[in-house]
């Protein structure tokens, strides 16, 4: 039976009066108008949110003369790539991007590794000692990084790893939230029976972790990896104090200090910023689902 038949029958049974039909039509039109208004509003909000970034990219293609023009233009009249060439010549921009990528990738690997092991142990090995340790991890989760970064700086200094990617990394090796996220996933999506069955079949603990637990956590680990990568990629205060030589800056620090120079050229600054922004926005749009899943799970504390 097709849907058409159903409605046909229904129409046959209940004869709506002309007034009822008109009322239904009016309500539907009202609803459609409502939705249209909402769509227009949301569209305006979306455009306003993106506008600063659009301005930035547009500025990157402006000539110095147009940059100073009043009133400011939105779309460059005479697009040029001179700013990009100049900024690549002036600053070790690619080196900074390379530093940031190395830092973010290593931090992601470290956080995924420590979180998956600790999350699994805390989720499935419910000994008293483990519960105490987990409470310890959780209790420090609310302490902002800014609170303890000065002593951490002196630790990095005594290790002799300032101005290197290792110095950056030491601040971003573990993530309390990551351990918490993986633990929740372990508890909810890996049944004890599965692990017990593997143990009865003679599987070792390592085999179980690598062959059963990790594959089942793929979704959560993906979300965590994206969160960890963006966290390191956008880090500011820590790289700011750990790196003091031009060649060891991350892109955030490099750009922030570049803009404090005396001869600030907005066109070049925008070109440098756009070079950083465009790839990270593309990366975000590609990984959006992972990211949203990761961030959304931060709100579900209970």
């Amino acid at each position: 039976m097709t849907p058409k038949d159903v409605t046909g029958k229904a129409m046959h049974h209940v004869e709506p009066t002309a007034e009822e039909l008109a009322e239904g039509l009016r309500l539907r039109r009202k609803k459609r108008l409502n939705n249209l208004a909402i769509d227009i509003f949301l569209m305006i909000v979306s455009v306003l949110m993106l506008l600063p970034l659009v301005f930035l990219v547009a500025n990157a293609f402006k000539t110095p003369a147009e940059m100073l023009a009043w009133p400011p233009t939105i779309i460059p009249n005479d697009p040029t790539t001179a700013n990009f060439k100049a900024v690549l010549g002036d600053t070790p921009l690619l080196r900074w991007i390379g530093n940031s990528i190395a830092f973010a990738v290593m931090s992601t690997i470290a956080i995924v590794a420590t979180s998956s092991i600790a999350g699994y142990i805390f989720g499935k090995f419910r000994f008293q000692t483990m519960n105490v340790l987990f409470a310890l991890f959780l209790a420090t989760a609310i302490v902002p990084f800014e609170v303890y970064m000065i002593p951490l700086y002196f630790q990095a200094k005594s290790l002799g790893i300032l101005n290197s990617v290792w110095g950056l990394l030491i601040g971003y090796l573990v993530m309390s939230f990551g351990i918490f996220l993986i633990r929740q996933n372990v508890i909810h999506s890996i049944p004890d029976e599965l692990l017990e069955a593997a143990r009865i079949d003679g599987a070792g603990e390592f085999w179980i972790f690598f062959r059963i637990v990790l594959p089942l956590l793929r979704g959560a680990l993906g979300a965590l990896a994206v969160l960890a990568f963006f966290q390191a990629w956008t880090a500011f205060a820590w790289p700011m104090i750990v790196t003091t030589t031009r060649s060891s800056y991350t892109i955030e620090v490099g750009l922030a200090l570049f803009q404090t120079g005396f001869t600030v050229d907005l066109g070049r600054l925008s070109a440098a910023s756009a070079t950083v922004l465009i790839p990270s926005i593309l990366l975000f749009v590609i990984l959006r689902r992972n990211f949203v899943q990761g961030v959304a799970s931060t709100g579900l504390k209970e």
Partner: protein
Amino acid sequence: MLKRKRFIFAMLAILPTLAIFAYVRLYPIADTLRLSLFQWNILSKNKPFIGLANFRELMGDHLFLDALVNTTIIAFGVLFLTIPMALIIAALIFHRTRSKMAGFYETAVFIPHVVSLVPAAMAWKWIFDARLGPLNAFLSFLGIPMQNWLFDPVLSVICIIILCSWQALGYAVLIYIVGFKNLPVSLYEAAKLDGASGPQSFWYLSIPMLKPITLYVSVVTLVSGFNVYAQAFVLASDAQGAPGRQVRVLVLDMLENSFRNYRVGYAASEAVVLLVIVLGLTLIQFSMLRERGRT
């Protein structure tokens, strides 16, 4: 026997993570607390224990109090701007979940939250620029006198609040959308049958039911507001071009005391103040949640 073996495995597996955690998290936190009680200067050999003297000095330190006031204004400004807007935008996006555009709205609102702080702040610096920026151009088009946004003591704080809210909004919207998805549909259907309009069920159903989420997002927003640094560093350079001096914030003041004045113990006591604020906010959140659970 078997249980013992499993316990040993668990201990061995957790040990490396635990060691790293102790070294990069527990130790520096404890060290912050310890240093705050010492006159610990990089340059002097003597680093005597001075009790709460650092904190007493903070209470009379104009730069610190200035930073504390600015940071508090920024944190609460971001809160009051972000939460109502996020709630409304999330409700509307949720209302339009089935439309093709929902994904676009969500992405557009969320992008400012993930882009790097510094390039984004750079975009806003141009927007607020008194001589070249489109904001003043727009104002003069409307016949409103142009403002010196980034150098006026009040306006420059507002600029930072706007920038931080622009970045914080996406996160709050996303969490609220998750909240809306978890609300029971049946309740809304019942309200509709009783003749409640959309705005009515938003006001009398959604807002009370989303209260735990509002509390959570508020605390996250406030805590990140109190840690504001990069935004002020880029946006609020003073007239000489010294970054972040126009609007002094806590983290900047702390880093200056530690790395410019070499007063590490004093800076640590500022960090402890920051910690106390964050703990206080978190405790308020938990106690309000518990209160709600009881009634």
